[in-house]
């Protein structure tokens, strides 16, 4: 098979994963890591220029194109952040170079698996990719070997495995549904074929399949009540991984879910997946925003905010309709950028202050103005205040769904308000007020954080037409 952009973005991480596993010396490997991710990102960008032909195993279309670019981009910026972050971890001896070799290899492996999940055209392959991604992150969450870290990793592992099983069962069911129509063999698992023939599938089977897929992949998305692994995994793992988890892995799982939703959207007899998704979305929003109030660990708090936003997105897709779907896609993108930016800031803050406890951090705008205002801007963005991008998506979600389902939308709006209250209640003291904790200047690279925030700001004011066109196509497909 020819070497086009499509398999290049898989090849680069795979190769560099192997390479970094062998390579000693963390400084060099950190640089190589950045290089690799940068290359991957550039290759991904080329997808917009020349669109490679989709094969039986890999495909590229409007839906995943955007996500590939987003994933590789955040992968790149995170690796830049990670380089300076890891440096500090080594200095204070939380990590040893030995672990770092493993860390960088795993990082690339994670990139590989996420890219694979995004470009996979075969639902079996997609399943495998998502699971590999899960397992790699499990290993990275546990990297600090503290009790908290081990426990978080273990919890993630167990819940993840159950999710894996459920997702697989769903996949099998989809195959069973497809087989009578398409016939035995691989074709019955190729997504493009499936979506073209899905109208003829047995609806009842599809429904059961979707339930399992919703729960299976939903576990990865972190929807309540399947969320349990998410906060601890974010809080206890190294911050770059938290950024990748919130920024990318959740998206990838959601992407998988969307693929199957599109199947059901095509099939007339099947239940509308909407109600299920809307319910789980609302539960997640309300639950997560209430959980924000009593958080003491800043990373865990933002992990819960990720759950809330996943809820919003799932709600949007559940409601469906061109506007809501568009909003959902936009929200996914914006949330990834913003949340990873916030985690960049939080990572450095935690390093400066030597703690993640909210109570021990204060007055950042005085002690570390750049970090403080950066975090503030990130929070302003994440709660959906203008002129940043998330406001646009929330505007579209609420305004386009209110006439269709007033009460549900009102619940959503309540959730948004509660979340805003919770976040500002906690962050206000961190950013303003008297200085608490050490005030050493952070040796940090602010570039990734502010790049993300700048992009979010730009998106809030002006969306590039190519993005809009792509999103609108997908929104139509999502029904």
């Amino acid at each position, binding site marked *: 098979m020819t070497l086009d952009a499509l398999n290049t973005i898989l090849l680069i991480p795979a190769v560099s994963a192997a390479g970094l596993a062998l390579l000693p010396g963390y400084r060099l490997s950190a640089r190589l890591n950045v290089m690799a991710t940068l290359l991957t990102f550039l290759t991904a960008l080329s997808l917009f220029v020349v669109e490679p032909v989709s094969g039986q195993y890999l495909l590229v279309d409007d839906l995943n194109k955007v996500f590939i670019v987003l994933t590789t981009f955040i992968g790149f910026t995170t690796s830049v952040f990670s380089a300076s972050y890891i440096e500090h971890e080594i200095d204070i001896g939380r990590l040893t170079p030995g672990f770092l070799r493993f860390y960088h290899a795993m990082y690339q492996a994670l990139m590989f698996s996420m890219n694979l999940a995004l470009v996979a055209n075969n639902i079996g392959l997609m399943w*495998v990719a998502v699971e590999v991604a899960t397992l790699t992150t499990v290993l990275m969450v546990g990297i600090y070997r503290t009790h908290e870290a081990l*426990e978080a990793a273990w919890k993630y592992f167990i819940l993840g495995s*159950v999710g894996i099983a459920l997702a697989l*069962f769903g996949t099998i069911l989809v195959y*069973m549904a497809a087989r009578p129509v398409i016939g035995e063999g*691989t074709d019955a698992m190729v997504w493009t074929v499936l979506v073209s023939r899905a109208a003829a599938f*047995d609806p009842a089977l599809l429904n059961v399949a979707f339930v399992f897929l919703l729960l299976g992949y939903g576990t990865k998305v972190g929807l309540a009540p399947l969320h349990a692994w998410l906060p601890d995994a974010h809080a206890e793992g190294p911050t770059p991984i938290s950024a990748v988890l919130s920024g990318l892995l959740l998206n990838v799982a959601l992407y998988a879910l969307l693929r199957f939703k599109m199947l059901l959207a095509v099939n007339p007899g099947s239940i509308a997946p909407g109600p299920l998704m809307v319910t789980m979305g609302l539960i997640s929003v309300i639950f997560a925003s209430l959980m924000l109030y009593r958080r003491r660990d800043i990373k*865990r708090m933002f992990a819960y905010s990720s759950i809330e936003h996943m809820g919003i997105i799932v709600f949007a897709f559940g409601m469906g309709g061109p506007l809501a779907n568009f909003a959902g896609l936009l929200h996914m993108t914006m949330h990834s950028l913003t949340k990873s930016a916030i985690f960049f800031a939080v990572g450095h803050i935690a390093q400066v202050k030597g703690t993640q406890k909210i109570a021990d951090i204060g007055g950042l705008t005085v002690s570390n103005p750049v970090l403080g205002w950066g975090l503030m801007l990130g929070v302003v963005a994440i709660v959906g205040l203008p002129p940043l991008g998330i406001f646009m998506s929330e505007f579209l979600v609420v305004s386009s769904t209110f006439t269709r389902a007033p009460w549900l939308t009102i619940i959503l709006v309540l959730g948004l308000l509660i979340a805003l209250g919770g976040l500002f209640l906690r962050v206000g003291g961190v950013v303003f007020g008297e200085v608490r904790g050490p005030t050493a200047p952070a040796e940090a690279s602010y570039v990734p954080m502010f790049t993300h925030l700048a992009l979010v700001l730009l998106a809030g004011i002006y969306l590039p037409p190519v993005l809009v066109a792509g999103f609108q196509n997908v929104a139509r497909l999502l029904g």
Partner: protein
Amino acid sequence: MHGLEFDIAHMLAGSLVLASFMMLYQDRLYALLNVYALHAFVLALSVAWQAFVQHAPHLYVTAAIALIFKAIIIPVSLHRIIVRLGIHREIETAVGVGMTMIAGIGLVALSMVVMLRVTPGADALAREDLAFALSVVLLGLLIMVTRRNAVSQVVGFMSLENGLVLAATGAKGMPLVVEISVAFSVLIAFIVIGIFLFRIRERFDSVDIQALDRFRGERR
């Protein structure tokens, strides 16, 4: 496939469900392991039978994995671990066995109902087989959530996974079955090793150094 073959496949699948019920009933660890071995053995049989009737030689590999890895290696190594870590032989159940059985029956009924809505258009095997597979999966989950004991929870997970393999092999001509079964075996190996590494005695979330509850996120 015609009558006899179908009936045998049906019988095997059914007995898998039966095995799950037996596991649900056990309250001693060793007994549980033995039953699990039986469970895996039945699975191996049914997979082998599917391979035979579907003329799908690659399924024999899956059968072999089921037989060797699940029916022999895993139970043995778990025996070892139990001895090593000196885990209590009794299983502390969160819910009484009686209740569990009733719940199990309910689950089986549920999976039947769900599956019978499938239009007969999908061939009989699909429906019956899936119904059984689904019940095995659900029963596996039930074991996981009703047993407090780590090993028994692992066993539950493994039986759940057997159900998946059953479904996968039942799905005629499904690609990647072998790969998937391998992948799962690896996963299970991970878990078992995990239990061994983290010296998890009683519960998933208690490592022997200290009970991990205190570290569950933010200390209360």
